[in-house]
């Protein structure tokens, strides 16, 4: 029992920190633009594919470094020559633009790489168990994922709250005109934030690709969960996004690891149904089966009891 719990916690943290790499960029970009970037997870997918192709020729580590740089550059270009132009036409136009971009990226990936799942592998160097506990192995690659994403989290925290650039970003998000009057190039700052945000999404794709499989639907799978996270956390709140990322990561991991099903709960209450009952499928559901919908369940609960999200501010 204890080992199940420990491993579920570790895996939950790995997922949670990975989700935060996407959620943090999405949150920052939302704060700047005022709209959700529906293409954010597409940059995550691009990261995985670029890293896969680079790894074929130059190995995993080259991909790890260059794929996020390429994705970030693409992101900055999209902001500079796409979103900034569309911005003048209002929020609806921006939303439509990011929707279109998400489709475009998915179609391009299918065009260049095909529809099949890519054989993007973890590097040999990390192909060993990091430690063994109660006879169960925790792979070095998962440890590596955790180290990278915690490192990114600390760096992001430090830059945003302690550095001058971070302070300028914080102020530019709420008071762009005032910051511009003080001599700071706000459009350039926004382009930089967009670039870094998409590069982080790309990095998440690079390290998640080998584990969560690299296929054209990977953006949709993770993207919807990341949207749920930023809404649960409270739109625009980085701290909220962090809490929600870990919450969802752990929740899903515990649900998958647990063996508890409806029959156990019902028999606890002294209720039982025979197998012929028409709703038999419902009564015999177990938690691992529900795990994928848990984030959405949580979303509904949060929207009912706290519509602004955990740490969100009320609309003015």
């Amino acid at each position, binding site marked *: 029992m204890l080992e199940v719990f420990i491993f579920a916690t570790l895996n939950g943290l790995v997922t949670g920190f990975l989700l935060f790499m996407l959620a943090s960029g999405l949150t920052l970009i939302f704060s700047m633009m005022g709209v959700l970037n529906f293409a954010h997870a597409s940059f995550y997918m691009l990261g995985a594919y670029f890293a896969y192709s680079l790894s074929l020729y130059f190995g995993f580590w080259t991909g790890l470094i260059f794929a996020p740089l390429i994705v970030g550059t693409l992101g900055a270009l999209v902001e500079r020559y796409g979103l900034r132009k569309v911005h003048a036409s209002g929020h609806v136009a921006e939303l439509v633009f990011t929707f279109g971009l998400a489709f475009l990226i998915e179609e391009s990936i299918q065009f260049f790489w095909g529809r099949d799942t890519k054989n993007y592998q973890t590097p040999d160097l990390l192909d060993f168990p990091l430690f063994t506990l109660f006879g169960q192995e925790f792979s070095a690659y998962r440890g590596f994922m955790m180290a990278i994403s915690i490192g990114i989290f600390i760096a992001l925290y430090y830059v945003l709250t302690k550095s*001058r650039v971070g*302070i*300028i970003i*914080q*102020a530019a998000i*709420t*008071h762009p*005109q*005032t*910051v*511009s*009057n*003080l*001599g*700071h*190039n*706000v459009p350039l700052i926004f382009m930089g934030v967009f670039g870094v945000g998409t590069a982080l999404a790309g990095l998440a794709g690079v390290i998640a690709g080998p584990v969560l499989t690299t296929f054209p639907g990977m953006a949709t799978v993770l993207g919807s969960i990341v949207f749920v996270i930023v809404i649960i956390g409270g739109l625009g709140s980085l701290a909220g996004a962090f809490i929600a990322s870990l919450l969802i990561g752990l929740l899903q991991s515990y649900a998958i690891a647990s063996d508890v099903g409806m029959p156990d709960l019902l028999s606890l209450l002294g209720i039982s149904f025979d197998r012929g009952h028409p709703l038999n499928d419902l009564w015999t559901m177990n938690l691992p089966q529900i795990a994928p919908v848990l984030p959405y369940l949580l979303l509904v609960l949060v929207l009912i009891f706290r519509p602004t999200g955990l740490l969100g501010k009320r609309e003015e």
Partner: protein
Amino acid sequence: MLKVSDLHAFYGKSHILQGVNFNVAEGEIVSLLGRNGVGRSTTVKTIMGEVEPHGSIQFKGNEIAGKKSFEIAHLGLGYVPENRDIFPTLTVRQNLTLGMKTNTPQGRWNIDEMFSMFPNLAERADVQGGALSGGEQQMLCMCRTLMGDPDMIMIDEPTEGLAPKIVEQLANLLQEIANRGVSILLVEQKLSIALKISNRLYVMGHGKIVYEGTPESLLQADDVKAEWLEV
């Protein structure tokens, strides 16, 4: 230093500035007076590039009409807006840091000096800007602009809602700023501070300059005061 010629500005269809002409020389304190709603704030916002300018604005020999706000700031023009736009969630020190255009302070001012001039701000260096009193916020806003080492600053109604004692402190600061060779355009409604520290004054009415003179001449001009200023 600053020369504004035939400046027009619009909010939607309403023609707010209708040919504004004035100038500020090096080291000068010049006041822009007038009643509510005549377009004084719009004038400084237009110079700063917040509102689209039509006409000519020369600053230190450069045509700045059409330039972006951050470019104008980089040329050495500072602006202290009337709404005391401090960053409420950042500390006093962080607010000051944001005024600097580079990573290290340079030029006429530095943070320690600001703090010794304003012990109130020094005491609350690590307090969030939003927790300061109105007067302290005004001082912070001014100091923040000075941290960028401007050669000229435009200050919009700094005395609004301040206690007389703080207004006096502010007048002294403005004098000190001018002594260091920084030109000042002071937008005011109250005559007293403007008469006390200005070298020259302009009075604005309905989108145009209607009077130009010195404090002495304005004191004599009862008709101007009666028609364009509330006395």
